[in-house]
């Protein structure tokens, strides 16, 4: 069942009137099924971040449309866009984006507070979630008092607490050491198994290998796709690495 559909997405940045713009996305097409864990890979400048910004309604496409659960994103009015983001999407950022003036608990509760949820309801939701993510003991601490991995877990908790339709993760392991990265990815895997749809942008083949499908993006378009299917972890990782290698060599051919 198609859950998110991206149709002919195009984004051109025009710095000034009249001057020729930079094309960040030329034509992106793909879809995500409910409960899928999709990784998007690509080099710097390939348009990953632009794509993610459009998917998360932080930016508007020049052409094309994104449908989430049948709703076209362009039809959401400016007024309700924050609400949409709060209720339908969960975000995990590379640099955590936790607020230092809130405790871990308040950081996680932020989207619920913004949605005017009752205190009882909030308390009910946070406890099991925090236990599940292994940060139950850290709730009263401040972000600057805990490690990077713990911060990212808190950020994941903040993304999940609204029970969003889709979690959008932007290089979630980018600022973590390998051990924390691995444990975070295992966490993603386990929430995926519980039925959560996840879209993750990443550089790392290792991170991508936890997904159920990898999309490769370059020069503003999706040019390759690998399904995990029933493959073992090693095989899947190897395929991803190979695809990356091919992509860079093909890039050379193209320049000739």
């Amino acid at each position, binding site marked *: 069942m198609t859950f998110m559909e991206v149709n002919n997405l195009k984004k051109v940045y025009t710095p000034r009137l009249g001057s020729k713009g930079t094309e960040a996305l030329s034509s992106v097409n793909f879809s995500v099924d409910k409960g899928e864990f999709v990784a998007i890979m690509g080099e710097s400048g390939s348009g990953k971040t632009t794509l993610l910004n459009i998917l998360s309604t932080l930016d508007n496409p020049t052409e094309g449309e994104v449908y989430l659960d049948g709703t076209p994103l362009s039809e959401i009015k400016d007024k309700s866009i924050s609400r949409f983001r709060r209720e339908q999407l969960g975000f995990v950022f590379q640099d955590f984006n936790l607020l230092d003036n809130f405790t871990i608990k308040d950081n996680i509760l932020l989207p619920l507070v*913004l949605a005017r949820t009752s205190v009882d309801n909030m308390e009910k939701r946070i406890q099991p979630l925090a236990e599940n993510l292994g940060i139950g003991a850290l709730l009263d601490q401040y972000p600057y008092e805990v490690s990077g991995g713990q911060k990212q877990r808190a950020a994941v908790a903040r993304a999940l607490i609204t029970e969003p339709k889709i979690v959008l993760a932007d290089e979630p392991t980018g600022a973590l050491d390998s051990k924390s990265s691995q444990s975070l990815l295992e966490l993603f895997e386990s929430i995926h198994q519980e039925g959560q749809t996840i879209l993750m942008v990443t550089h790392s083949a290792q991170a991508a290998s936890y997904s159920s499908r990898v999309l490769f993006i370059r020069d503003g378009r999706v040019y390759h796709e690998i399904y995990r299917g029933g493959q073992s972890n090693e095989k899947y990782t190897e395929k991803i690495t190979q695809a990356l290698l091919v992509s860079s060599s093909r890039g050379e051919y193209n320049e000739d």
Partner: protein
Amino acid sequence: MKISFISKMAWQNIKSNRKLYIPYMVAAGTTVAMFIMMSALLTNKFVQERSAVLTSLFGMGTIVIGIFSLIFIFYTNSFLMKRRKKELGLYSILGLEKKHVNTILGMETVIAGSISIISGIIVGILFGKMSFLILNYVLNFPVEIEYSIGWNTFGLTIALFIGIFFLTMLFNITQVTFSNPIRLLKGGKEGEKEPKSSPILFVLGLLSLGAGYYISLTIADSMSALTQFFVAVLLVIIGTYLLFTAGSIIVLKLLKKNKKLYYKPGPFISISGMLYRMKQHAVGLANISILSVMVIIAVSTTITLFLGTEETLSIRFPAENKLTMSPPDMSGEELEQNAEVLYDRVEQYTEEQNLQIKDGVKYQSVNLFGNLKENVFNIREIRDADGTMLLLFPLEDFNQMSAEEYNLKEGEALIYSNESSLNLDSFTIAEKEYNAISLKEVPKMIKANTQIVDTIIAVLPTTQDIDEVLSYNNEQPGNTKTQWQAEYHWNTTGSEAVKKDYATEINGITQADDLEVSGFYESRETSRQEWYSMNGGFLFLGIFLGGLFTIGALLITYFKQVSEGYDDRERIQIMQKVGLDKQTTRQATHSQIVWMFTLPILTAAIHTAFAYPIIHKLLMIFGIMQHKLLILCTVGVVVAFALIYWIIYRITSKVYLSIVE
């Protein structure tokens, strides 16, 4: 490195950071200008010629502005440094040694400091001159007040600000020396700890503020008001700083504990935001509060003085003409005879001019100082704040003055005290005991004299009784000699012009060479001009100071908003990413702004309310007795200042919102 290279580099840095440096130099320059304008008043002729109180008052003002300059320049400097940390970190990574970075930074401070000091002095002189010119013109005083700046004012200003800039330089250098490049690169992004609440400081603040308020509320009379005013001000200032720094955190933490209240979008964002930044901004808020109180008090008291000049005159001069005599070493009888001679001449002259004397009152009295212990009045030589004044009248004079018919037997006395609780059944003066008959009311013309200090009025049966007291006092070794005083108050018929000439003539008559005892004559009309010019001068200074302090408050508010804007910007952006909408952003920032606006102005209003008794007592020295005028002026000034502050806040919060959004 060569000096030329360093200065080139420093200048380049200032130019490329002009967005930060220009506001910094404007702020520092304005503080310099404020300081030089304030300190110039210390050596101002008008100020020095009036009274020592005024000089010490302005001395205190100068000290306050000096401290304010130090705090404020440090505040803006740390704001500047915080934004530049990244750049400095980059230098270290690119291979500049710390000492090189330090020399460049030092050079930057030297350049920025000199520009600020020089431009500040120029602006201070120009602005000072200009505002004096404008105020002189607008208020239209009979006597112009000159603005002058002496060399010592320059010296003081330059020395102080070189000192302040040197301290900021040291601060910046230690910042660079004791940090590593990676941390500098991350800049202000490091997490700041949530401030700890310290109940001890809070209690100390409460005590200090309470003590200050207590002094004001329980002040007995004008003399003690004069001596204790500075103590009270100091206590209130300390209390304000402590309460703002410690109290605000305690209150915010309590609010945070109330979950139902805290976990709502508006309070959630604003309470946590305020708590987070309170440590830095409590001082700013306290500064604004104190400057606001100063504006309010300076302007309202001087307006009251100016508008109350007529009242002052009517107290000083119960009638249009006033003639006093107080020759040394003379008995009551002798003075009476001598006074009659002079009075006759005055009356004769009046008759010659075809004028009539109306409401004439003549009396003699003796004025002593001491203290009352149980029923015994001990005369003392030193006049200090906790003593009591004793006014002695012979019965005959008192009856004439009050138009009453009191009768006293030998050994009886009428006793009036301005402390209504005092109820004596006997009264002992100069080792003689009188049966006290309590007096409920005294004539208005002498009641005015009883307001400044604790006063007892004693009416004794005969002039001889008072002579005895006098000689008893004058025989005591170490006591100041005291004498009788005769007073004559009267009005005349005739036009204004006639009265003016009459006053000049009478002045000559009372000073005539052939008089054994000459008199001292004053006319209300001639004094009027003098009083108006003096009170006008005070009004002038009040408005000038008010303007100065308002500029101070404006500067702090502006910088607070800008720095808070930059601090909050990132937080708001993150929250918007996770679903904070524009409307809630506005609501939250709005409530934050409203609090930051109301807190200082509310504090200022409360301080002013508590300061009211002591200020009223101080104004009594100038003859302002009525409450109505002072209350009206104070309320008016508070409202007007709140309005001005509100405008300032509207403008600066726009700046804030534009940064945040």
